[in-house]
């Protein structure tokens, strides 16, 4: 049995990638299942998806704890998730990154494939949805499924959802990634530490399903999941605030879908880059052009 664990962010298409690799495996005459795991349904929040491939019917429906392959859809996830946890000896990692594999610190020495899937997606699809490029890289990183089957599965699955043309372009993105992959060995410098989670016993559980925002055992806990996970670090565009031009109308503050704009006492604003996803609605609505969008995840 070949087991794959995807680490992505809500909205990147990790679930669709897992489903598509399963479909590709079925085209190769194998059995496969794929399924997601996420916390709150929230764009940008870290999520996992899993796929299992075997030559006989698959009974295991538990999550994947010892993957043969880990797929990291977005480089900054390595900082906040133990992506290489449980990776089998001889297993491999596929990482969306501009860096070469021997610059990727997974905390474990492993075969590692990198590809700049974000650039491929922006070029081919005009959107930073990297799943199809990643699928191409996966087909190159290990030989459990062929690029031909992957492209067929993309054409079928994406074609069904988004139309034939979208299926074709996404298959091209996979082919491009397949050709551009670099393969090497990852670094083992960082410790693989599991994300700190507040795990109370039933006796410690606060009564009444009530929880204030507070620290428990050094861990920030509170309503929702974003206290623990910065959901903005994967943006491809970043807003720059031009304070002098601001007319203090607060429209940006009102329209921000993620409450990432803080309104100061005098109605100037402050942007919280931990949660800003770079959607650009603030820049678009600003009547004074006091917010401009710049390329990249940082100013």
């Amino acid at each position, binding site marked *: 049995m070949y087991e794959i664990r995807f680490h992505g962010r809500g909205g990147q298409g990790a679930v669709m990638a897992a489903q598509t690799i399963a479909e590709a495996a079925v085209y190769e005459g194998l059995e496969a299942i794929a399924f997601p795991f996420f916390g709150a349904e929230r764009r940008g929040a870290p999520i996992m998806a899993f796929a299992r491939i075997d030559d006989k019917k698959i009974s*295991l429906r*538990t999550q994947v704890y010892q993957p043969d392959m880990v797929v990291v859809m977005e480089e900054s996830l390595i900082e906040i998730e133990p992506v290489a946890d449980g990776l089998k000896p001889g297993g491999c990692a596929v990482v969306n990154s501009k860096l070469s594999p021997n610059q990727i610190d997974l905390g474990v020495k492993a075969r590692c494939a990198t590809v700049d899937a974000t650039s491929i997606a922006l070029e081919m699809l005009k959107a930073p949805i990297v799943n199809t490029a990643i699928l191409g890289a996966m087909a190159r990183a290990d030989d459990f499924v062929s690029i031909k089957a992957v492209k067929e599965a993309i054409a079928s699955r994406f074609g069904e959802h988004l139309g034939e043309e979208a299926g074709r372009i996404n298959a091209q993105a996979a082919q491009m990634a397949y050709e551009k992959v670099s393969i090497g060995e990852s670094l083992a410098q960082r410790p693989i530490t599991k994300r700190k989670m507040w795990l109370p016993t039933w006796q410690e559980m606060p009564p009444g399903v009530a929880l204030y925002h507070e620290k428990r055992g050094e861990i920030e806990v509170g309503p929702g999941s974003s206290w623990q996970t910065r959901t903005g670090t994967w943006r491809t565009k970043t807003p720059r605030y031009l304070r002098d031009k601001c007319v203090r109308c607060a429209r940006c503050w009102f329209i921000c879908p993620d409450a990432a704009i803080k309104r100061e006492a005098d109605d100037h604003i402050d942007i919280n880059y931990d949660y800003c996803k770079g959607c650009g609605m603030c820049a678009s609505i600003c009547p004074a052009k006091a917010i401009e969008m710049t390329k990249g995840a940082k100013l």
Partner: protein
Amino acid sequence: MKVKVLSGDHAVAYAVKMCNVDVIPNYPITPQTLIIEKLSDFVFDGECDATFMPADSEHSAMSMAIGAAATGVRTFTATASQGLALMHEMLYVAPQTRLPIVMANVNRSLGAGSGIWAEYNDSMPERESGWMQCYVEDAQEAFDTIVQAYRLCEDQRVMLPLMMCLDAFVLSHTVEKVLLPEQAEVDAFLPRFRPLNFLDTQNPKFINIAVTPAHSMEMRYQLDHLMRETSSVVDEVDALFGKHFGRSYGGSIQPYRMEDAEHALITLGTATSTARVAVDELRKEGKKVGLIKLKYIRPFPHEQLRKALRGVSSLGVFDRSIAVNGFGPVFTEVRNSCYGMGMPITNHIAGIGGRDLTVATFKGMFEKIMRKEGAGRDCFWHGLRGDM
């Protein structure tokens, strides 16, 4: 036959389409939405000749389903969790009125402590409503069971509604290989719907009349008796399905490695798949363990279960919900059914709110079953933080 890679939810939608359903009242709720979205696509694209009726709530969706079925047409709806709870009042109308509605319920935990993952505290309370209720473990079984459900519900001896339950995400959003039969094969298996109780302008009558204490008791007993008689029809329909399609699921229950088993566990839903791996591993160690998948909790398969448990010296029952201050509901049902058989029966609660069920979880259950633990409260929570 066609091979497709489908999620559990989409497998349900394909089955509904192939069963030529006439009316689909609906209200979307995670994780049932994939079913409704796919059916909406099918209807919009002209692949499914049904009336698609978005409702303003689940209470209305079930009311519409009852109204549609009462005109004598084939009806489907789907819901989950809070949606099923909101239907509660209307659910009771369909069985007593003998309307064979088929509904998919994607098991999701019921708030407070609101979550979107699998727990059976939404569907379990509804086993008292007079609906048939079953649990499936993979996408193929979800497809096949919907097809079986229309045949079963519309059988003149039955004419009851059925709720097919599938686990949130672990099944609803898990894709896997599904064999889709040809339309002609489904048509050959599923006869034209001939309603028993329907509004007919040629032959006017009241249905759902108000009743006095002078009639209620006989009416209730009639339904209780009917449900008990229905269990054999469940098995019959599954066997017939096997003849048509080459796949069957044992009917009400599906034993696994039970031939010489001394210690057995009863599971339902997707837990069964992972538990089978645990059984295989324990068998390799020489342990005489077996598994019974309880597919139907209504009608409850008393006779089939007692027969399958002959020779078993200790029994455990898995539950994915708790009847507060009671036990897991499946345990209560099984222990009642097995009264007098003599073996110790313990309750094993796990996977609450969708917590991952691993092979180790089920091995932990078997450990307790094999040690015949369970004097006292007989109820173990597996994976609970803090001493019980």
